[in-house]
């Protein structure tokens, strides 16, 4: 017995009211909890109250596929109609009662091991775990009775038995489910005086920090890894108080979605390593915006403090990213602080850049642009460009007399005439209906991790078959590697290949062609072979369009919609004046040595090496811009933080330059430039709405091109470093060093 206990016993007066009972501990918080059964019986006797209708939790809606399947249950006396097969917890949510839970997650399988969601069900001897219990017709569920309350209090006490009291130094503090629920449902003291257990921290790589002592074994992360991410990296070891989450052997988590375990962990066991001890969630300002690191356009929330982006979190969008984002999206933000261009610069005679004023920089660019012939002016938009600035760039170059303007990654002769030829016609959420996938020259796992998660979900849900043509790579679902080159594609088109019967027998077949094919010389031939497969396999029907292109970059779809197509395919070879609007990955080897290069962008990346003039621009977190994702859904970013240094928005720079060059563009505001966009691509103004393609592939002219048997190349070499922002990111560099090691 401790000294303090002895002292308190000595000080405490033994009042005689409770006789011989040892008075030091009284845990039960409220008198009615001492005999819960009796009060439950008393509640029974009360007449059925006429309750006003309640709103479901989180605006949840119920969809009845079959009206006969509807059953009625009573939640706290309030009748609700739900479809058969729903759990008690879901019924409560429809009735507007939020049940506390730790292990239950609506997108994961049901584990039922935290017991926090216990509710009382009439005629049931014990409280039931509502997340695992199917609701039965006429069930009378009580969520607010003393039995339920006591059950929650008891569960809470057991969870806190081994949970450390380190909330002040825990990164989850302030957004911790355990913290919130112990405040709401827990007792005000604990009865356990023994030592808390401690667990060795695991090393899960450079992204996820683990403090395994805080873990409450809800197994959400284990289920996420195996069900959504499709990797069997995490698991449970041991039983009882020896139970631990871990990787079995010393191993890093190699999923491209691993960052999501941070979000689903209800406690501070799995937290973000780069964000550790950086900020508290209540000091952050959230800005709802769009991710641009790939063509999916995941919905994100940028949390910033002052001028600094502190972290990036996913935002719910059922049609695009559900509630997950890829690691590249989540952790690229430190790239926004490094290698930034902050002042206009001109390369002097000694080859060094000199800071100049905007006035001088624009004057020089305009002067040089007028000295060359219009045909040798070339403009290339980068992969992170927004639609507004691409519109301005095209208008500016057209006014200068040139039409050599394109977006990097779309190849030399992109097909921008038929919209169905470059967007994902099935839509990302539509992929869930598919039963056969044919991936042509695309590796969705590295090109668009969220699309890959959708395919994985479909493969798990309805055993869809996946065939893949391209270089050897690893998939996180069952996949049949059919071949490496267009020859296999030809075989399928001719019907020799066994996979052709899989396509033609499928109900909803899907063909996905990677945008890496755009860079090939024989892309028209490949697309015509793919269309032959689609025609023979009945892939495109009035009710189902399964022929898709998976784009690589955030700017691509909008660029093709706006008609950023070069006039001639060899314009780079003869160019004398090149305007790179954030284009870093364009191959400038063939450029003449005397060409004048203007680089307008936010990072000192590859494009800067040859640039003569640098015009600083704002990154996606600092500007308002429209981006169209690979399925043709236009979305807008919002500025979360101010621009760095003397940088300007892309479209403003081009608008200013056009005036200095004497070919003034007719818009001064974002509204003005958008009404210009409306005349070119009205779908870009339908924000947050997917605009399907109107015409199908059948309108395409015959192709006389010969198929080149060279195998497909992988479009993305390093998942973690694909653009200027991610290449500048230290975290992404660590990831590629440790996770891509073979």
């Amino acid at each position, binding site marked *: 017995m401790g000294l303090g206990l002895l002292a308190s016993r000595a000080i405490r007066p033994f009042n005689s009211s409770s006789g011989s009972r040892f008075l030091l501990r009284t845990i039960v918080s409220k008198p009615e909890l001492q005999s819960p059964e009796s009060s439950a019986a008393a509640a029974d006797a009360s007449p059925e109250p006429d309750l006003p209708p309640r709103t479901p939790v989180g605006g949840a809606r119920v969809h009845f596929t079959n009206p006969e399947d509807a059953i009625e249950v009573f939640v706290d006396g309030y009748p609700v109609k739900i479809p058969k097969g729903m759990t008690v917890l879901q019924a409560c949510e429809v009735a507007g009662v939020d049940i506390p839970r730790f292990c239950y997650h609506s997108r994961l399988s049901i584990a039922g091991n935290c017991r926090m969601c216990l509710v009382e069900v009439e005629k049931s001897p014990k409280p039931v775990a509502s997340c695992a219990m199917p609701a039965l017709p006429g069930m009378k569920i009580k969520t607010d009775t003393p039995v339920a309350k006591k059950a929650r209090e008891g569960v809470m006490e057991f969870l806190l038995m081994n949970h450390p009291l380190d909330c002040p130094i825990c990164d989850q503090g302030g957004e911790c489910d355990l913290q919130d629920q112990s405040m709401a449902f827990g007792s005000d003291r604990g009865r356990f005086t023994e030592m808390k257990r401690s667990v060795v921290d695991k090393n899960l790589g450079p992204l996820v920090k683990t403090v395994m002592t805080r873990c409450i074994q809800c197994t959400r992360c284990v289920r996420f890894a195996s069900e959504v991410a499709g990797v069997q990296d995490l698991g449970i070891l041991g039983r009882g108080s020896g139970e631990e989450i871990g990787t079995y052997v010393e191993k890093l988590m190699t999923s491209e979605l691993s960052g999501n375990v941070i979000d689903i962990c209800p406690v501070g066991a799995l937290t973000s390593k780069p964000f550790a001890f950086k900020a508290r969630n209540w000091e952050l300002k959230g800005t709802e915006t769009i991710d641009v690191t790939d063509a999916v356009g995941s919905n994100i929330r940028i949390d910033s403090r002052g001028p600094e982006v502190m972290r990036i979190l996913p935002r719910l969008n059922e049609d695009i990213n559900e509630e997950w984002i890829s690691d590249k999206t989540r952790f690229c933000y430190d790239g926004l602080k490094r290698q930034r261009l902050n002042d206009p610069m001109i390369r002097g005679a000694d080859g060094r850049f000199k800071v100049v*004023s*905007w*006035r*001088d920089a624009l004057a020089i660019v305009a002067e040089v642009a007028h000295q060359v012939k219009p045909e040798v002016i070339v403009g290339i938009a980068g992969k992170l460009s927004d639609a507004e600035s691409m519109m301005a760039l095209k208008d500016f170059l057209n006014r200068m007399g040139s039409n050599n303007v394109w977006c990097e990654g779309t190849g030399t002769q992109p097909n921008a005439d038929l919209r169905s030829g470059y967007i994902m016609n099935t839509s990302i959420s539509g992929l869930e209906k598919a039963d056969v996938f044919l991936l042509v020259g695309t590796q969705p796992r590295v090109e668009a991790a969220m699309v890959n998660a959708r395919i994985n979900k479909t493969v798990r849900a309805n055993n869809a078959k996946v065939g893949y043509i391209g270089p050897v790579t690893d998939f996180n679902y069952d996949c049949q590697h059919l071949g490496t080159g267009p020859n296999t594609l030809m075989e399928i088109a001719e019907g020799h290949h066994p996979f052709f019967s899989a396509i033609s027998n499928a109900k909803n077949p899907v063909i996905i062609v990677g945008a890496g094919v755009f860079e090939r010389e024989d892309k028209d031939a490949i697309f015509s072979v793919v269309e032959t497969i689609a025609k023979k396999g009945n892939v495109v029907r009035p009710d189902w369009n399964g022929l898709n292109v998976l784009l690589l970059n955030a700017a691509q779809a909008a660029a093709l919609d706006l008609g950023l197509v070069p006039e001639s395919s060899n314009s780079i070879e003869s160019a004398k004046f090149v305007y790179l609007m954030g284009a870093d990955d364009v191959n400038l080897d063939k450029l003449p040595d005397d060409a004048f290069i203007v680089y307008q962008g936010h990072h000192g990346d590859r494009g800067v090496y040859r640039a003569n003039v640098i015009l600083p621009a*704002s990154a996606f977190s600092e500007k308002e811009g429209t981006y169209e994702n690979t399925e043709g859904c236009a979305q807008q970013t919002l500025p979360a933080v*101010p621009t760095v240094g003397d940088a*300007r*928005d892309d479209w403003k720079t081009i608008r*200013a330059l056009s005036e200095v060059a004497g070919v003034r563009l007719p818009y001064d505001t974002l509204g003005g430039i958008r009404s210009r966009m409306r005349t070119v691509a009205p779908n870009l103004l339908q924000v947050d709405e997917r605009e399907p393609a109107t015409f199908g592939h059948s309108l395409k002219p015959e192709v006389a091109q010969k198929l080149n048997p060279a195998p497909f190349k992988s479009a993305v070499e390093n998942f973690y470093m694909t653009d200027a922002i991610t290449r500048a990111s230290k975290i992404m560099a660590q990831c590629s060093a440790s996770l891509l090691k073979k």
Partner: protein
Amino acid sequence: MSFTLRSVKVPPNSVNLEEARSRMFEFFRLACRSIPSIIDIYNLDEVVTKSQLRTTIAAQIRKNSQVTNPKVIDMLLFKGMEELNNILEHAKQRHHMIGQYVTGQHGLVQDLDSKDKGMSDFLKNFYKTNYF
């Protein structure tokens, strides 16, 4: 010398515009005569010449050239005298002088050009800031 000006009392109001006008010239001459000692006090000889300072003073006075009310002119005169007193008493620091009278309100960078005349508001704002 600087403290001699301290004894300057508030003069009686000017009777008419003529009187106010002559007082203004009086003040301008006084300010111009103090320029050498101002340059001396604040070590301004390396950043500005006497004639530049004279131009600045004249510009400050011309800014109110449209004022015709003698009372207002008297008030402005008083403020000007006050400012001159403060300057001569070394109540300011060197960077105040440079900020207010050498580089002016527009900051150090003043690349105004003759071709800026036909510039649109957009371009003018663009050169200043990204947020407009």
